[in-house]
C-alpha cells in the first residue's frame, strides 16, 4: 500500500473542537485510492466523526485487514496507532487488542471480500463475543486490487465490468449481524455524509460490537450500468429509513420510547443520545425481529433501507462477559500478576 504525505499546513481560522484540535489533526496521509472512490468519502466521515466527538487521537486504534478498504486507516487520524494486518483477520486481531487494552477506542475498517469471504468466521465470532469496537464494512461488491472479481456481497443479476451476471446469492452483512445477535447495526452510503457521520459517532459511542455496512461504489470496477453497487443504482434505491441525530452528552437518562411525531431516543452507554426519526410508521429499531422482517421485505423489492437499523444497549460486551477488571490488562504491574515463590511452594504440596 502506498501513500503520499500531506503538507503540514492548516488555516489559522480553522474551527477547533473541545480539545482545541482542527479537522486536519484527525486526518492521515494522502489517499492513493482511485479518484472518486467511495472509500475516501467514508474516510472523510470518519475524520469528521472523531473530530466532532473530540476523541484524543492516541486513544484510538485503527484496525484493518487487506484490500482497498483496509488501506484507509492510513488516511485518517495519523496520531493513532494503526494495524494493517492480514486478509480477513482483522476481527480476530482487533479482539486481541480489545482483550489486552479495553481502554482503546477500536475502529476496524474492512471490505466485503475481507469480511464476508476470507474473514467471515472471524466477523461472526467478534459479533458473538460483542467485542467493544466499531466495525465498518466498505462494501462495493467487488475485489478491486485483483481487478474486479465478484465478492460475496454481489447481488444476484448484478453485472461485472465484462458484462457477466452474478448468479450466487449474496451474503447480507446486516441480516447476518442481526441473526448473530449484533447490538448495533447500521447501513449507509458513502456519498451520504449527513447520514454517515452521526451513525459513525453513535457506533463509536455504543458499548459492544457496532457494525455499519457502507455501500461504497468502486469507480473502477463496479460503477457501470447493470451493477447494483454503482453510484447511480445506489442513489436510486437507497431509502433513508431512520435518519438520526447524535447528541454527545445526554442531560438525562431516557429509556427507549416513542415520542410524538415519529421521534425516538436511545441513550448510549456513555450517556450520549441517539435520536431517530422513523420514516416508516411501525419501524422499531429496538425490535430485532420486526427489523429483520421489514428489511427482508424491502430487500425483496430491491430497496436498501439505510440508517441505524437496530440498536440494543445494555448487553454485556466481551470484558463484562469475562468479568475482567476495569483497567487495561496490558498495563497491570507484574507484582499484581505473579503469585511469588511462597505460593509456588505451597501449591506443590498438591503435586505429591
Amino acid at each position, binding site marked *: *500500500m*502506498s*501513500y503520499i504525505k500531506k503538507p503540514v499546513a492548516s488555516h489559522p481560522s480553522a474551527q477547533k473542537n473541545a480539545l482545541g484540535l482542527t479537522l486536519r489533526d484527525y486526518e492521515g496521509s494522502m489517499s492513493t485510492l482511485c479518484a472518486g472512490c467511495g472509500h475516501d468519502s467514508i474516510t472523510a466521515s470518519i475524520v469528521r466523526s472523531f473530530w466532532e466527538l473530540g476523541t*484524543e*487521537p*492516541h*486513544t484510538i*486504534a485503527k*484496525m484493518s485487514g487487506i484490500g482497498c478498504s483496509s488501506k484507509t*486507516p492510513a488516511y485518517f487520524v*495519523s*496520531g*493513532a*496507532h*494503526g*494495524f*494493517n*494486518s*492480514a486478509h480477513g*483477520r482483522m476481527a*480476530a*486481531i*482487533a*479482539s*486481541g*487488542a*480489545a*482483550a*489486552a*487494552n479495553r*481502554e*482503546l477506542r477500536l475502529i476496524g475498517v474492512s471490505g466485503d471480500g475481507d469480511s464476508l469471504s476470507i474473514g467471515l*468466521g*472471524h466477523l*461472526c*465470532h467478534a459479533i458473538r*463475543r460483542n467485542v467493544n469496537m466499531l466495525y465498518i464494512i466498505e462494501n462495493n461488491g467487488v475485489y478491486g486490487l485483483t481487478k474486479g472479481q465478484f465478492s460475496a456481497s454481489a447481488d444476484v443479476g448484478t453485472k461485472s465490468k465484462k458484462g457477466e451476471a452474478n448468479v450466487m446469492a449474496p451474503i447480507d452483512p446486516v441480516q447476518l449481524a442481526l441473526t448473530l445477535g449484533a447490538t448495533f447495526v447500521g447501513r449507509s452510503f458513502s456519498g451520504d455524509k449527513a447520514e454517515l457521520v452521526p451513525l459513525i459517532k453513535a457506533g463509536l459511542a455504543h458499548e459492544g460490537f457496532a457494525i455499519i455496512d457502507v455501500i461504497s461504489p468502486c469507480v473502477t470496477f463496479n460503477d457501470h450500468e447493470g451493477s447494483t453497487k454503482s453510484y447511480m443504482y445506489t442513489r436510486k434505491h437507497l431509502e433513508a429509513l431512520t435518519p438520526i441525530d447524535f447528541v454527545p452528552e445526554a442531560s438525562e437518562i431516557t429509556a427507549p420510547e416513542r415520542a410524538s411525531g415519529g421521534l425516538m431516543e436511545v441513550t448510549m452507554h456513555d450517556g450520549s443520545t441517539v435520536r431517530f426519526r422513523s420514516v416508516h410508521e411501525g419501524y422499531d429499531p429496538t425490535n430485532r425481529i420486526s427489523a429483520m422482517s421489514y428489511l427482508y421485505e424491502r430487500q425483496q423489492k430491491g430497496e436498501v433501507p439505510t440508517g441505524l437499523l437496530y440498536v440494543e444497549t445494555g448487553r454485556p460486551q466481551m*470484558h463484562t462477559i*469475562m*468479568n*475482567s*477488571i*476495569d483497567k*487495561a*490488562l*496490558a*498495563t*497491570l504491574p*507484574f507484582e*499484581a*500478576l*505473579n*503469585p*511469588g*515463590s511462597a505460593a*509456588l511452594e505451597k*501449591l*506443590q504440596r498438591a*503435586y*505429591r
Partner: protein
Amino acid sequence: MTLSVAESATPAKAAPLLPLSVNDFAFKLANANGTGSASANGLIMQAIFRMGIPVSGKNLFPSNIQGLPTWYEIRVNKDGHTARTIEYSLMVAMNAETYARDVKEVRSGGYIVHDSTWPFPNALRRDDVHYLGVPYAQMCLDNFAGARERTLMKNIVYVGTLAALLDMDMAVVNAMLDEKFSKKPTLRDSNHKAIKLGYDYAKANFECPLPLRLQTMDKNKDSILIDGNTASALGCVYAGATVGVWYPITPSTGLMDAFTAFCEKYRTDAETGKKKYAIIQAEDELAAIGMVLGASWAGARTFTNTSGPGISLMNELLGLAYYAEIPAVVFDVQRVGPSTGMPTRTQQSDVLECAYASHGDTKHIVLFPANPNECFHFAPKAFDLAARFQTPVFVLSDLDIGMNDWVVPKLTWDDTYRPDQGRVLTKEQIEAGGKFMRYSDDDGTGVTSRTLPGVTAKGAFFTRGSGHNSKGVYTEVPDEYQEIMERLTRKHNSAKTAVPAPIVEKRQDATFGIVTMGGCDLAVREAIAILAGKRHQADFMRVRAFPFPDEVEAFLNEHDVNYIVEQNRDGQLTTLLTVETGVSKDRLKKVLFYSGFPLSAAAVANFIMADREAM
C-alpha cells in the same frame, strides 16, 4: 448372583520364575477407555512416587471417548532410569478385546492378572507366563450397587490386588484415598472397600508378594509429580501472561485448562471478584494467533497453545508477526502427523514447521523442553525472548511430556525476576525523543524500538505486513526492503546467545557423540549408560533451542560421528543442524523412532550398537 464359575487361580506349573527384582521392573495395564481406569492407574503411580521410588507412567490412549483399548505403563527404576521400556514383567489384562496382543507382550516368566469371572481363552494361553485370575466382575457385582459403580470399582479392586502382589505400602494407598475423597465420604468408603477386596483376595489366593517388589526409598522428597501442560501453564502465570487464546486440540488442551484454574486461584481480585486475565476460546487457530498478535501489539504478555494442525493454520500470521516484529508465544504440544495423524500419540515432527513457519523468508526462535520442569522454566524464558526480539517464540513440547505425569525436581521461583519487556518506549521516552521511527536500527543491535497504542500520539505508527522501510512506511524500493530483511537475519542470529544453551555431558574415552532434543532425554541418557556397559563410550548433547548456540556446532565438530536421536521420520533436527550450522552432514547419523509411543532406551542403544559394530 453368580456370573460364571471362576477357574483355578493356580499359576501354570511349567512357567519359569522371574528372578527377584526390587524397584526395577515395568508393568502394563490394559483397559477399555472411558471406564475410569485412568484415575486408578494414576493412583498406582502416585503411590509408588510417594514410596520414594523413581517411577514413570505412560498413558497410551486412543482418540476416542469410550470403549476403545487403552494402556497404561508403569516403570520403576531405583537408578532413576524412567524412560519407557517395553520389558513388561506383569500385565493387568482387563480388556478381553486386546487379550491376544497383551499376552504376547509379557516377558517369559512374567504374570498376567485377569478377570476370572469368565474363563481365559485357552487359545491365548502361553505356558511360559503365570496367570493370576481374580473374579473382578463377580466381586463387584456382589459388593457394589449399580452398573456405573461396579465398573469404576473394578479398577480400584485391581489396584488392591497389585498392592498385595507388588508389596505396595498400604498406608500410603489408604492415605491417598482419604485425601482424594476427603469431601466425598461415600466414595471414600467404596474405594477403601474395593482396595481391600482386591488386596485380601490376592493375599488369600496367591503367593504374595511376587518376585517383583516395591520397597520404600527416599528418592522423591524434593520432587513433584506433574504433567508438562500443567507446568507450562504455571510458567505462564509466573511469567505474568494476562491473555491466553486457544482453540481446543489434543494434546494441548490441558495447558489452557490448567492456566484457567491457576488464574482463577491467583488472579481473581480479592475485593471485586474481577479477573486480572482474559482467556478466549477462539473460533479456530487462525483467530487464536490473530488475537495473540492483537493483544501483544497492545502490550499484554499473550500466548496460545496448540498442536501441529494448529501451527499449520497459524502459518500465515506467524509470518506477519515475524515481519512486523510483534512478540508471540506459541506452545506446540506435538502429536503424530501429518494431517490429523494420530492425535493421541507422541512425536517430534513440528521442528522444521516451527523453525521456518510461514511463506517468504522467515526464521523463528524455538525452545525444546525435555520435561515438565523445563516446561515451567521455559515459559518465562519464551515471553522474555519474544519481547526482547519482538518475534514469535515456540515452546515445542510433545504429548508424552504434556499429558503424562512426570517425576521432576520441585519447581523453584526467583522472586527477583522481572519480565524483560524489550525495547518498548515509555511515554516520556517517546516525547523526549525525535520523530519515532519504528524500524530504525539506531544502535546496530538489530532490535528496534516499539511503541504501544494508547500511550501518546507522537509514538503512533502504522503496523503492516506489507513492505516497509526503517521508518515503518510502505515501500517497494528494493534497498529499503532488503535492509529490513537483512536486519531480521541479524536479529535472529543474535538470539543465539540469549536462548538456553545445550546440555552437554562428556565421558572419558568417548568415541562418538549422541545428540537429541526434548522428551528423548531420559531414553538417550539411559541408552548411553547401556552403551557404556558394552564399552561404547559416547558424549551427550541435548539441544535446547534454535537458533543454535555456538556450543552446538562445536560439539558436532568434536565428533566424527554424531548420532542424532529424534522422533520423526525424516530427521528434522538433523536437517536443521545441517542447514543452520557449518557442520558436514557426513558427521551426522539419523536415529529415528516415530511410531507414536515414547522412546525406549533399548531401541536407541540397540540401533547405535549395531551401527558401531558394523563399522
